[in-house]
């Protein structure tokens, strides 16, 4: 290949890459919490929305990665076969984790409901709101008309996650949660928060597998913790408003 042709190809590549880069839309601006707008809110309806995915995330460990690296060292045509092997390894790991999740999830726990109840209880105990009603659907009629604001809670994912690596890996229950407060009359979002919530307790995955009751308890605990944490952040966002 001539130098001139290489230069033309390089320039074309730069053009294509820069074109792709400039066409990407900027991320939407994040909603800033407005303590002033929250101040007048007295009656709140808390609604559970969205789907929740249960996962048991073991993920790749240093040891499993090291073994895979060792094996792949001897594979011919590395440029082609190594990425394929890694992709296959990822798919198989993901499938195994899916199987493990299906056998671990407590069927009688609805994560959004547990978070909503804990959130409502924590707000009631803290006092800044006069009325907090938890619901598993959007309010209608008087329920909606009498509310100053609607808080929508989502638990996109929950389950068990490895939180410490070592000779005996330890696992904790977790819940990723999102909350959004919308003024009923105007539809304005006055508060938004998302949080990764992790149970302070840590156990081996084997302990979770052996004892279903313990697993259920740890999962319910972390969902309640998530509800309390969200309430704590909402109270804090009010910035002292009474």
């Amino acid at each position: 290949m001539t130098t001139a042709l290489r230069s033309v190809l390089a320039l074309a590549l730069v053009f294509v890459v820069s074109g792709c880069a400039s066409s990407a839309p900027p991320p939407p601006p994040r909603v800033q919490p407005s303590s002033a707008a929250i101040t007048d809110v007295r009656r709140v309806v808390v609604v559970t929305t969205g789907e929740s995915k249960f996962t048991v995330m073991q993920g790749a460990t240093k040891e499993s990665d090291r073994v895979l690296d060792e094996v792949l060292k001897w594979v011919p045509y590395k440029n082609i076969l190594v990425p394929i092997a890694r992709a296959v390894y990822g798919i198989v790991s993901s499938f195994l984790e899916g199987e493990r999740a299906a056998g671990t999830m407590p069927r009688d726990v609805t994560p959004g409901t547990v978070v909503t109840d804990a959130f409502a209880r924590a707000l009631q105990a803290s006092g800044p709101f006069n009325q907090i009603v938890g619901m598993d659907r959007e309010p209608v009629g008087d329920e909606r008309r009498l509310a100053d604001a609607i808080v929508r809670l989502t638990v996109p994912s929950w389950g068990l996650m490895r939180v410490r690596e070592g000779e005996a890996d330890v696992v904790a229950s977790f819940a990723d949660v999102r909350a959004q407060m919308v003024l009923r009359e105007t539809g304005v979002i006055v508060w938004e928060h998302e949080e990764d919530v992790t149970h302070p307790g840590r156990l081996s995955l084997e302990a979770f597998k052996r004892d279903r009751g313990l697993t259920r308890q740890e999962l319910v605990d972390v969902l309640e913790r998530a509800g309390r944490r969200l309430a704590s952040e909402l109270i804090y966002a009010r910035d002292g408003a009474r």
Partner: protein
Amino acid sequence: MRRPPAFVAGLLVLAGTAAGCATRTVDVGYPAAETKKALLGNMASRRVVVAPVTDRRGDKHRIGASPKDGKPIVTARPVPDIVRDALVLEVEKNGHQVVAAAPGDVVVAADVEEFWLDAVGRSPATQYVGRVAIAVSITDGHTGDRLWSRRYVGIRRQTAQPDSKHAWRDVMDVALARTIRDVATDPDLALSVARTQR
């Protein structure tokens, strides 16, 4: 043989430098700009003594180990000072007067039980888990009666590059902030402070 003082001093400097290189330092803190009024602000102002924070961590010399090379991660300032400063900021923001020593109306005491950063997995998606656990107690400054005590735990999970100092700091900053916000919005703690006489 007696070694000359200059030789000993040189060794000490060398050891100090080596120790400095052997650690990774992160400047963990609690941002004053993000401090807000919470439940402690719903009462008349008190004179509050924030006692020196006791360090009850198992490993007082580090807050974790770098996942890349295993070098100890340390904070730029002593951990008890970081926690105490955060408590002082919260108390002052809520309109109370922090006094240097007794007598005060209220004594806030805290122990740090954990201040730790774990790393799970490896490049390019290392998951960091930061944990801050403190025990807080409220004592009546006039009578010496202990009114309240509770443990608070703040945890933050974040995925980042294996050697990202920014991620280390961010994870610990957020874990600390969550802990302190739980303190600031605890209705039972606020009630205990409100029960003290001015």
